């Protein structure tokens, strides 16, 4: 049976057939026919954001917290260009998104028409793939392909650019099952010889460590389950990147905490001193490796990744395994069990003793205060008072983001939404809106800094319009804290442009939007204030006034290896090598 319909109707039909329940978007001239179709139906919920960047980050939050692709609908020209930051963010963090953009009619393309931009050209380097649809007969086919590409292999954002005349014209609808997707089928199963080589190395290793990343979460819940089984069975220590937090529970006995530039002492020293590093779905990012020629010098390295271009991109590995994390972990477990569940018990015991000594350093210790709220204390209290809840955390970018990663615990995957690769200030607030849409009854908290939060604060209107009870937990130090810290350490304490001047009164700002504002500046009031935030049924801006010049530790300075970490305030004022300055 062939079905004839307009392009606009086709788009809505294709979204329904793909199981889409929520679209984040903003209307405009070149997408009016699609908005007409959205008006005429009730299956797809459209969330009207206040800026297109907010739509894309909200879709990222939705996608990352559900494992489903996020969907965005924006108009041509400025609608599309405003989406570019979100697309780039999703590309670097491998978040599946399908972004639909309107375009001027096909016969006007190239004439510099009103709200015309070369959307395909602009977004080509910041999408996994993109399509310009010039014929209504191709439209539904392309949308089905777009969902396939966004969610297959290493996930990522895709964009479909749809001229207005294509939306108006009639064409034949292609069913989802008839979409041509055969040629893009990334390999899921890893090479058995390589997996056997890894098992062999695991049996012999004296000082092994699992180094896991966002790929475990992207692989789906089964991957996290298999990872937990493998860690428990082998008793190997495990650390994770920012993007991978929650895949292994923070309460697990083998957990080392996050690694990297602001990772935990024990995690970084385990990476530096290991003899077998097993990278599962991470990509040797520069925030992780530090100085490359001194990165984990004595280890054999295995790397499991679904993207062949991740292998040997930064670090040459000894055992490359291309495949999906869940599939590969399943094979590792099967082969390891069939060979008799062997590990190097004596080596492992010494290694665990060593790690226990490192943990005793207590690298997250900080000087408490009864006068000012220390940001670390604020997060410790937030953790204590919210950990029993069905909780999702989003963050902005900066010191608060790293403190959130250090002091909050993640027991399950898909619970932390943060901009890891691109480091997009302004990500967290709209992301929290997307998360709350997907999980209406959950406690969704955006841990923010006052500077990041202002970058997309227009989305307060979205939060109140849809009665989304998102909690904006702003650690307000009236500084661009991370920039200020770098200026202190690197640029002779010249604090160029890193003050937050003319801040709004956040309580009044909340009230202006019809939301609740809470101000807290005394550590003694903090618990009550946090409880008030949790118990309020609606969006809250929590202005948590914290110590202004607190620095973030541990810290591996740029150009330094993992075993040269700065711990605590003892390091303040210590200069950085000039060759490391460029690596900021």
């Amino acid at each position: 049976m062939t079905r004839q319909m307009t392009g606009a109707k086709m788009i809505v039909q294709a979204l329904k057939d793909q199981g889409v329940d929520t679209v984040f978007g903003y209307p405009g001239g070149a997408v009016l026919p699609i908005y007409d179709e959205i008006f005429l139906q009730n299956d797809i919920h459209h969330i009207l954001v206040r800026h297109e960047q907010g739509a894309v980050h909200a879709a990222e939050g939705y996608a990352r917290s559900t494992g489903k692709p996020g969907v965005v609908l924006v108009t041509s020209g400025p609608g599309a260009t405003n989406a570019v930051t979100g697309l780039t963010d999703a590309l670097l963090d491998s978040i599946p998104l399908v972004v639909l953009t309107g375009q001027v009619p096909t016969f006007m393309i190239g004439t510099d028409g009103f709200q015309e931009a070369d959307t395909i050209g602009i977004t080509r380097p910041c999408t996994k793939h993109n399509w310009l649809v010039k014929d209504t007969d191709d439209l539904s086919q392309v949308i089905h392909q777009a969902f396939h590409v966004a969610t297959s292999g290493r996930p990522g954002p895709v964009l479909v650019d749809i001229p207005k005349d294509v939306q108006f014209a009639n064409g034949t609808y292609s069913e989802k099952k008839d979409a041509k997707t055969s040629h893009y089928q990334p390999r899921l199963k890893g090479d058995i010889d390589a997996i056997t080589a890894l098992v062999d190395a695991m049996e012999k290793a004296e000082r092994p460590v699992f180094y896991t990343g966002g790929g475990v979460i992207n692989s789906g819940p089964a991957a996290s389950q298999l990872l937990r089984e493998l860690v428990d069975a082998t008793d190997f220590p495990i650390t994770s990147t920012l993007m991978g937090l929650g895949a292994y529970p923070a309460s697990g006995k083998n957990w080392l905490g996050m690694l990297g530039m602001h990772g935990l002492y024990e995690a970084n020293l385990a990476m530096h001193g290991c003899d077998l590093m097993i990278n599962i779905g991470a990509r040797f990012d520069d925030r992780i490796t530090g100085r490359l020629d001194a990165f984990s010098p004595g280890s054999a390295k295995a790397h499991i990744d679904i993207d062949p271009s991740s292998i040997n991109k930064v670090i040459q590995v000894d055992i490359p395994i291309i495949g999906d994390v869940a599939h590969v972990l399943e094979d590792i477990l099967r082969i390891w069990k069939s060979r008799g569940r062997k590990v190097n018990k004596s080596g492992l015991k010494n290694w665990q003793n060593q790690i226990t000594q490192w943990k005793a350093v207590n690298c997250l210790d900080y000087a408490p205060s009864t006068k000012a709220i220390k940001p670390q204390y604020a997060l410790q209290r937030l953790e204590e008072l919210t950990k029993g809840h069905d909780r999702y955390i989003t963050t902005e970018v900066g010191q608060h983001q790293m403190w959130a990663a250090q002091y909050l615990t993640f027991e399950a995957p898909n619970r932390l939404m943060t901009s890891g690769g691109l480091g997009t200030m302004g990500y967290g607030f709209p992301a929290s809106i997307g998360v709350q849409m997907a999980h209406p009854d959950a406690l969704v908290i955006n841990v923010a800094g006052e500077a990041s939060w202002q970058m997309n604060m227009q989305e307060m209107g979205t939060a109140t319009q849809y009665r989304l009870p998102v909690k904006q937990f702003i650690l307000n130090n009236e500084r661009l804290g991370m920039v200020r810290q770098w200026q202190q350490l690197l640029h002779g304490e010249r604090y160029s442009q890193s003050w937050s001047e003319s801040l709004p009164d956040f309580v009044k700002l909340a009230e202006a939007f019809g939301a609740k504002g809470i101000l807290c500046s005394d550590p003694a009031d903090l618990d009550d204030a946090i409880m008030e935030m949790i118990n309020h049924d609606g969006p809250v801006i929590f202005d948590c006034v914290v110590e202004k010049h607190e620095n973030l530790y541990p810290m591996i300075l740029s150009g330094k290896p993992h075993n040269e970490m700065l711990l605590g305030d003892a390091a303040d004022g210590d200069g950085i090598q000039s060759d490391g300055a460029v690596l900021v």
Partner: protein
Amino acid sequence: MSELKIKKGATSHSAYELRNPNANVIEKHTLAVVVDNEAGVLARVIGLFSGRGYNIESLTVAEIDHTGHRSRITVVTTGTPAVIEQIKAQLGRIVPVHEVHDLTTEGPSVERELALFKVSGTGDKRVEALRLADIFRANVVDSTLHSFVFEITGVPEKIDAFAELMRPLGLSEVARTGVAALSRGKD
């Protein structure tokens, strides 16, 4: 080309990667990339090279299968072994790319380039140009009383050599197609 240490076919008969990926030596590789012949596909490939800072020494593209909508891009690039491997992996993950072949490492291959040379002059120089063209098996495809246009095919080095000889004889314009390459043998 001789100053570039090219180990042709180094991995073609071995189960192991024999080249040291950490070597700093710059190698020249010829890659054949089979793609869907769709709008923008060349921009994706070129954008990859410029966006990630890879070199393009030569690039040719044309449709090779009209009914199957396939084009073949032949790109000559330079880089360390690790960079070459990365280029191949990055090309491979572009959605409309079907195949990536490294003709430099996958066994013996043939490379050809076509060039047109306009040489203007009179008298002895004109005679000498014609004589050298004959040695290089270049064809005259256009002639006036004051000029020739020569057509020459061969490996890029042969075309370079011909250009050097023509320069003092009145070479005024050059058009080169870039390299087209295929593996030798039946597969």
